């Protein structure tokens, strides 16, 4: 749409009295179509798209940062449902956003198809006849003593890759068709990007999960194994590529101020032939057959051994979520099967045990033990608060694994045991009922995103084409030159050559090119 063609902005005056409803409707439809495919409408739609994107950056978006949407609900309980109703938390998937870009693309197609046809015709046609008055053109000159003939003029021009038409004693030449070609390529590439995005959302899928180090926590690629996942509507769950991952090692290095320097995860991949070890990092995803694995985050999972009042021991690890840059992490560890009487085998739900914890990779030397001083484990400490009672897990209601059920605590069914206590690795804490809890150490975990998007290659190729087309259309110049050779005079072999030049697009350097073209033609004679 970047050339200098004005389209009719409005349909021509409607007929005074439409013959019938059918014709009237057809007239309205034609008018609407013409309006939609006009340059002005396309520009307005383009701006609407920009304006419509703004709320997407002002409001938290569900698919970008879910927690912030939940925060928004908490902070503005009356406003949030209204925002929800207009898809404010999913701007880029909303019907109104789609309406704008679909209208824009329809407008684009309506604009491009006729231009494609026109350009196709132009590409196959010869340059037009030489105008009668060459001196009326923006560039004009006379060569008094031209020794050659029209064939020589044409040859010189062809050498400079002009498209040439010779008629009698005149030569018309045109150049710069690539401008419109580039223009069309640019816009069609945009349609291709839209197709690629659609393909990606239909045939793509992703799953996110936390992967704790060690053989016990390995996972395989199926939906149940993900904490959060999304399949495109055309993806069959059974068709996901079969592979299993086990986190063997995770290394993080930090600067003195706690800023991370490097991350590296080492995993064992199974399922694609023999098991093999792979290592990957931020910016360097693990590329598997049909999926890529991205390292999004990392953290610590404290390991706790609980020995209940009957002497039965259970060991658990639970990933804790980091709350700041120094990896102060919070989480919970539940022992719902604690205190089962070995004599009767009866589980008393009011004797379940759970711990709320704050893990400090580098704990301060003295209280309060609330914030870690450094993200690496220089002086680890686990601040535990013990709870005994009904953990509320039996009701089958899904709850967060990172904290104990606050409802159970508030209702008194789950109550605090003693004071919170900071445990160093290997330290043991004996609770009032003689049971003990021991902090054994930590495992590392990584947050992974496993993704497949079949559209991304197409989108990349299309956008490279778009860029190429854009440059051609921005820097290309369509221009014509015309030559007319006067009839030979009996006295001299030289003839008068009259030359005119017409830049068909905005082209400030045309005068220089015109001069050099004329010079080249002269030289060739």
């Amino acid at each position: 749409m970047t050339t200098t063609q004005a389209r009719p902005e409005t349909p021509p005056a409607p007929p005074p009295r439409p013959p019938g409803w059918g014709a009237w409707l057809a007239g309205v439809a034609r008018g609407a179509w013409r309006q939609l495919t006009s340059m002005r409408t396309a520009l307005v739609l383009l701006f609407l798209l920009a304006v419509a994107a703004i709320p997407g950056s002002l409001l938290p978006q569900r698919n970008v940062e879910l927690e912030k949407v939940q925060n928004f609900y908490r902070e503005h309980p009356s406003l949030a449902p209204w925002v929800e109703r207009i898809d404010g938390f999913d701007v880029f998937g909303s019907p109104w956003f789609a309406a704008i870009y679909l209208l824009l693309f329809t407008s684009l197609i309506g604009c491009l198809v006729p231009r494609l046809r026109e350009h196709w015709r132009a590409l196959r046609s010869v340059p037009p006849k030489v105008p009668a008055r060459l001196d009326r053109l923006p560039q004009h000159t006379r060569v008094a003593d031209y020794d050659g003939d029209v064939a020589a003029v044409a040859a010189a021009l062809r050498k400079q890759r002009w498209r040439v038409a010779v008629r009698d004693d005149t030569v018309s030449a045109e150049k710069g068709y690539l401008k419109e070609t580039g223009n069309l390529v640019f816009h069609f590439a945009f349609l291709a990007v839209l197709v690629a995005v659609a393909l990606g959302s239909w045939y793509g899928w992703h799953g996110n999960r936390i992967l704790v180090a060690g053989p016990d926590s390995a996972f395989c690629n199926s939906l149940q194994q993900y904490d959060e996942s999304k399949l495109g509507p055309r993806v069959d769950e059974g068709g996901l590529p079969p592979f299993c991952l086990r986190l063997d090692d995770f290394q993080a290095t930090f600067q003195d101020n706690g800023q991370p320097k490097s991350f590296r995860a080492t995993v064992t991949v199974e399922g694609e032939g023999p098991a093999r070890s792979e290592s990957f990092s931020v910016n360097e995803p693990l590329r598997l057959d049909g999926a890529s694995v991205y390292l999004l985050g990392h953290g610590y999972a404290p390991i706790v051994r609980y020995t209940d009042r009957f002497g039965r021991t259970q060991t658990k690890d639970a990933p804790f979520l980091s709350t700041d840059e120094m990896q102060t992490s919070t989480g919970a560890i539940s022992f719902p099967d604690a205190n089962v009487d070995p004599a009767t085998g009866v589980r008393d739900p009011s004797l379940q045990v759970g711990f709320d914890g704050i893990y400090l990779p580098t704990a301060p030397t003295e209280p309060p033990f609330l914030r870690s001083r450094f993200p690496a484990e220089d002086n680890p400490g686990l601040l535990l608060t013990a709870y005994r009672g009904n953990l509320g897990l039996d009701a089958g209601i899904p709850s967060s694994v990172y904290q104990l059920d606050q409802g159970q605590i508030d209702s008194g069914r789950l109550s605090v045991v003693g004071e919170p206590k900071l445990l160093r690795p290997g330290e043991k804490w004996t609770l009032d009922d003689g049971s003990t809890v021991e902090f054994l150490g930590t495992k590392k975990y990584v947050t992974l995103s496993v993704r497949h998007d079949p559209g991304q290659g197409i989108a990349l190729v299309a956008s490279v084409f778009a860029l190429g087309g854009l440059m051609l259309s921005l820097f290309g110049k369509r221009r014509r030159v015309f030559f007319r050779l006067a009839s030979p005079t009996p006295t001299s072999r030289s003839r008068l050559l009259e030359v005119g030049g017409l830049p068909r697009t905005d082209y400030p350097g045309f005068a220089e090119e015109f001069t050099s073209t004329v010079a080249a033609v002269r030289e060739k004679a």
Partner: protein
Amino acid sequence: MAALSDQLLVVAMLGYLVAMICSAAVYAFGSKGVVARVAERELVGAGGPPVVESVSPEPVVAARDGRAVWIGRAATVATVLATVAQVACLVARGIAADRLPWGNMYEYTIASTSVAAVAWLVVLARRPGLRHLNLYVSLTMVVLLGVAGLLLYVPIGPLVPALNSYWLAIHVSAIAISSGIFLVGFVPAALFLIRDGYDRGKVGFPFSLGQRLPAAAVLERLSFRLHAFAFPIWTFGALIAGPIWAEAAWGRYWGWDPKEVWAFISWIVYAGYLHARATPSVRKTTATWIAVLGFLTMLMNLFGVNLFFSGLHSYGGL
């Protein structure tokens, strides 16, 4: 080296300040300045043809203008020195940190304004007649460098892992270069609007500056060429290199992160400008307003998004 870099920033700022003051002096007292024009008007009033504001290569130098010419030269020299100091500041920072010097918002601002400064010198070398615009360019530079030095400054440190990729060289450089050129393109765009308003008889404050500006068509054309040059680089940086890196780092090539949203908005607005500029039925002033709007979205993206929103691009060091 780090200290040297910081000192060079101060030198650059002082240089632009000197350039600004000298340009302002030429403005007031030069051959096209207030004093000169009063004299000129008397001459023209005596029956000569109306004086059309032009970008004549060298104004007629009367004896009283000698000083103004020297001040004008000093302004140009100061601009060149300031640009050299600024680029040196960037290079020194890169050497001190042993990496590309655009890993946080402070460095990014210095880098993109360096591009703007160099682009301006190129324009200046090719079109000496536009040197009157130096006042506005150096003013913009002083303001932006001031913001960078006072508000955004962070000490040198290594890159966070998320930025540790060769795409930093490709993506951020392309963005910095195109933003720098958009910044230079914005100056003639804004001045075109002033000059155009002046030509249409407006006399209020910003338009009164118009009489000392180059011809409207020259400004408009310069602005278009700078934008047309920067736009493909922006397209490459924001919509090709950015998504490729985003795919490797975050797993998706486009995810509507606030920075991505605003890059998209800027792209759309500048695309709208180029379309409007190419459509004869759209007036040049309307088109240029779109370019000005585009620059505002760029500012929003650089400062607004980094300061007010948090997102995946938050490594501004703020």
